[in-house]
């Protein structure tokens, strides 16, 4: 399962989900199953929490190895609406990694949200949903959903909320998060552009005199531009990302969805 956690960019360059390292025989004594239940279907996701909105995004390419299986396979799913078309949903789940697990995870979470609504007569809060998602993932600790999930919505105060997960259920609320194949390409960019890491006031001095640039929450339009830029960059440098950019913006008025083109090469 080495490939599963190969999020380390130092290890193998631009972080393909498969590595191009020279082939070596399996180590002596290592036992392997003949059937590998996992595969990596590539792709990348990203989420940014704003003051009163959350932007979720993902590319729409689905790969296996060097083959593009599909140019339109969404990674973003509305969760917990009353109907199958999720018209009144307020939560979005993005999944990237092994697509079949992602699909199963989505359906399970959605079914749980629907049962919650049936039993309690009200929709689940993002916070509750986030905790439940963690439990779902951890319950399969020893045969994990190979999925990097990000859950987005608005919290009780109406603020943007983004929760990110590892495949076995560790989770955290964050300002922004990139997941999947190009996470290592996008995350530093977000650190710089969303959290203003390594940005200083020009001319404020050197050394300790340097002043950090004041942190301001992004506006929605700034966020949207940032997302598109992030993916344009990722597409350029990662073969498993491309084709289309699916973006969902969650506000108090509901969820808006847009589909933008990305390079198809």
């Amino acid at each position, binding site marked *: 399962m080495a490939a599963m956690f190969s999020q380390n960019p130092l290890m193998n360059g631009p972080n393909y989900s498969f590595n191009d390292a020279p082939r070596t025989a399996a180590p002596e004594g290592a036992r392997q199953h003949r059937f590998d239940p996992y595969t990596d279907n590539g792709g990348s996701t990203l989420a940014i929490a704003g003051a009163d909105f959350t932007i979720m995004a993902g590319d729409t390419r689905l790969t296996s190895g060097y083959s593009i299986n599909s140019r339109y396979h969404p990674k973003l799913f509305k969760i917990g609406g*009353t109907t*199958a078309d999720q018209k009144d949903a307020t939560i979005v789940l993005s999944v990237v990694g092994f697509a079949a697990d992602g699909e199963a995870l989505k359906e399970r979470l959605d079914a749980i949200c*629907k*049962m919650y609504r*049936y039993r309690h007569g009200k929709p689940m809060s993002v916070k509750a949903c986030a905790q439940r998602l963690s439990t779902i993932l951890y319950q399969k600790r020893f045969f994990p959903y190979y999925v990097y999930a990000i859950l987005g919505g608005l919290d009780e105060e109406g603020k943007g909320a983004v929760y990110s997960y590892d495949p076995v259920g560790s989770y955290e609320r964050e300002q922004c998060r990139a997941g999947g194949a190009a996470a290592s390409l996008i995350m530093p960019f977000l650190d710089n552009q969303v959290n203003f890491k390594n940005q200083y006031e020009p001319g404020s001095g050197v050394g300790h005199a340097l002043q950090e640039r004041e942190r301001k929450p992004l506006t929605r339009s700034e966020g949207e531009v940032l997302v598109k830029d992030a993916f344009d960059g990722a597409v350029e440098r990662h073969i498993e990302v491309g084709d289309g950019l699916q973006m969902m913006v969650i506000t108090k008025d509901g969820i808006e969805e847009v589909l933008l083109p990305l390079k198809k090469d």
Partner: protein
Amino acid sequence: MFRNNYDNDSVTFSPQGRIFQVEYAAEAVKQGSVVVGIASKTHAVLVAIKRNAEELSSYQKKLFPIDEHVGIAIAGLTSDARVLSNFMKQQSLGHRLTYGRNMPVRTLVDMIGSKAQINTQHYGKRPYGVGLLVAGVDDHGPHLFEFQPSGMTEEMVAFAIGARSQMARTYLEKNLEAFADCGREELIRHGLKALKESLVQDRELTIDNTSVAIVGVEKQEDGTTKPQPFMVYDGQDVSAWIESVADNQEAAPAAAEGEGMDVDS
């Protein structure tokens, strides 16, 4: 203690080939307050009278959503209804997950029919003491089913079960021809008028004791149809409908629809 020797349990036939326990269970349905259902070409409605145990207590709910395309009205033992309702919810959710479609209403109804039949053929079990009206839409359009404790399920154009429901049925029979082409609002009014027929003297429909539910199909722009999710309305939401069928209002809406109905005279 017993009326005769053949009514102790549901596994004994009387010499006439009747099973008294099942017939007694059907009596339990008549103890429940009245519910009415009607189906047209585009919609199915359920309307119900809710009861409260005493002046200050809350009203017992009568209409329950099952899935986005199905809901039920109950008359009889509420706790038995809950068992069936949960079962139906699970089945239709499972069907949606497995096939990605609305469960055909008849399939769903047949399942509770089979479930109920078992209880009428085995010692130690008792028949369900509840009757249901199941309203739903599927690829064949809107449907209304009646479910009886015997396990009998039949598709109806319109029906009423519960206390004094015969009067409502008489109303429905009289207006049978009109239902097929009714729109949503008209159908609800017919339902409420039927309901009024079954009211005890000096009782009235109020926003506290009346529930309305509706499910339907909409024509889409591309010519296909789309289900209008099952929705239950209570309280203030039903006041306009109640007013529209109030005795003194009778003339006005009828005239507006250009349809002379002289049923309540």
